[in-house]
């Protein structure tokens, strides 16, 4: 049992590091680690994963939030979509054949990995955003901001609010359904759709994941999916890993984060599709 806990802790440490660095959260690694690696029932894995997701997000966000990279207002506004989605996802989890959703999710991730690779050619569009004409809704929601770069403060204004809100709802549903942070989708919603700079997107995503996961974790806790013995080493391991990852993010450059992000989501995409086809999920 001590060995089991120790290996679990090590896996969680790694998951937390990758999760925090990419804005994905540790959940997508924890669920396959527990089910495939340890033969744990998927329902316990989902409950444990949600716990790890909250600790990754909150642990890393406690560093990000002071740096002034993330945007609290945009995050809060979009949390309406993610928390509503999370509750819906947890409710759907009772009825839906989750292996089908897993396949769809895998395909979405795969698509986003391709998009992420393509974007490297036009790296400038994300980093040197022209000051676009602000729309009325964005103005009302004060959905704009600045973030620090090597060349001083850069401005950005949020675009395509409706599309972003819709994808955020989907991110919430998948989070509640699969017990993951859905950080990849949150980053896509902000980075690709709403045209928020990549670093602001990843750190705001991390910030939002905790609240999203808490919305479904309450329901999973009540359903008895969250086991103390299983969750303890995972939670602590993921927490320490995420804090190391957060230190790394501030030092590293956007391009390397994007590459790591693309590789990680490609691997996860295949994993999700495989698990769906094998009806492991």
């Amino acid at each position, binding site marked *: 049992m001590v060995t089991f806990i120790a290996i679990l802790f090590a896996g969680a440490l790694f998951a937390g590091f990758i999760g925090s660095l990419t804005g994905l959260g540790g959940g997508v690694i924890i669920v396959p680690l527990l089910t495939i690696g340890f033969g744990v029932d998927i329902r316990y894995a989902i409950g444990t994963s949600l716990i790890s997701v909250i600790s990754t997000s909150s642990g890393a966000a406690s560093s990000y939030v002071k740096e002034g990279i993330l945007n609290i207002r945009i995050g809060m506004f979009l949390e309406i979509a993610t*928390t509503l989605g999370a509750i819906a996802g947890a409710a759907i989890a009772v009825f839906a054949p989750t292996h089908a959703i897993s396949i769809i999710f895998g395909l979405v991730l795969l698509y986003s990995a391709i998009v992420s690779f393509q974007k490297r050619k036009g790296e400038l569009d994300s980093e040197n955003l022209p000051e676009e004409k602000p729309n009325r809704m964005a103005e009302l929601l004060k959905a704009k901001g600045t973030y620090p770069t090597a060349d001083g403060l850069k401005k950005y204004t949020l675009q395509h609010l409706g599309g972003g809100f819709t994808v955020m709802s989907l991110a919430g549903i998948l989070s509640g359904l699969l017990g993951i942070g859905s950080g990849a989708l949150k980053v896509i919603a902000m980075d690709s759709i709403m045209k928020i700079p990549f670093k602001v997107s990843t750190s705001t995503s991390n910030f939002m994941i905790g609240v999203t996961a808490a919305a479904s974790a309450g329901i999973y806790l009540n359903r008895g999916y969250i086991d103390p013995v299983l969750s303890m080493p995972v939670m602590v391991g993921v927490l320490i890993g995420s804090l190391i990852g957060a230190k790394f993010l501030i030092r590293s450059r956007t391009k390397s984060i994007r590459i790591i992000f693309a590789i990680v989501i490609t691997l996860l995409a295949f994993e999700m599709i495989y698990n769906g086809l094998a009806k492991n999920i």
Partner: protein
Amino acid sequence: MTTNTKHWNDARMRNIMGTLLRVGVFSAAFLAVSGGVLFFIQHPKEISDFTTFKGEPAKFRQVHLIVKEAFNLRGRDVIQLGLLLLIATPVARVIFSLIGFLIEKDWIYVAITAIVLIILSVSLFSNYLTF
């Protein structure tokens, strides 16, 4: 609205929020690790089986029971209180944001934050509803 005041408040809000998250997460981790140590002392030979889903007993599921049982200082009960505290941490962050936006008199964001808080409350107290 003077931008300087707003900026100052936002920076202050960020700092307090960061501390709040840190305290919440580390207290939760401390409780979980303490509970883990207690568990190993109290049940050194126990092997838990997670390969089949049985569902947790009520004392690990219901908020008021988790809080009550933790005072008996049994390992798993203490861990579960830590996990509950962890789930409560993002909720506390939202409550704090609400206070922050109230102080800033940012009414649109007071409303937005209140909506998020209501959604979270519905979820976390879902066991008191028939769900």
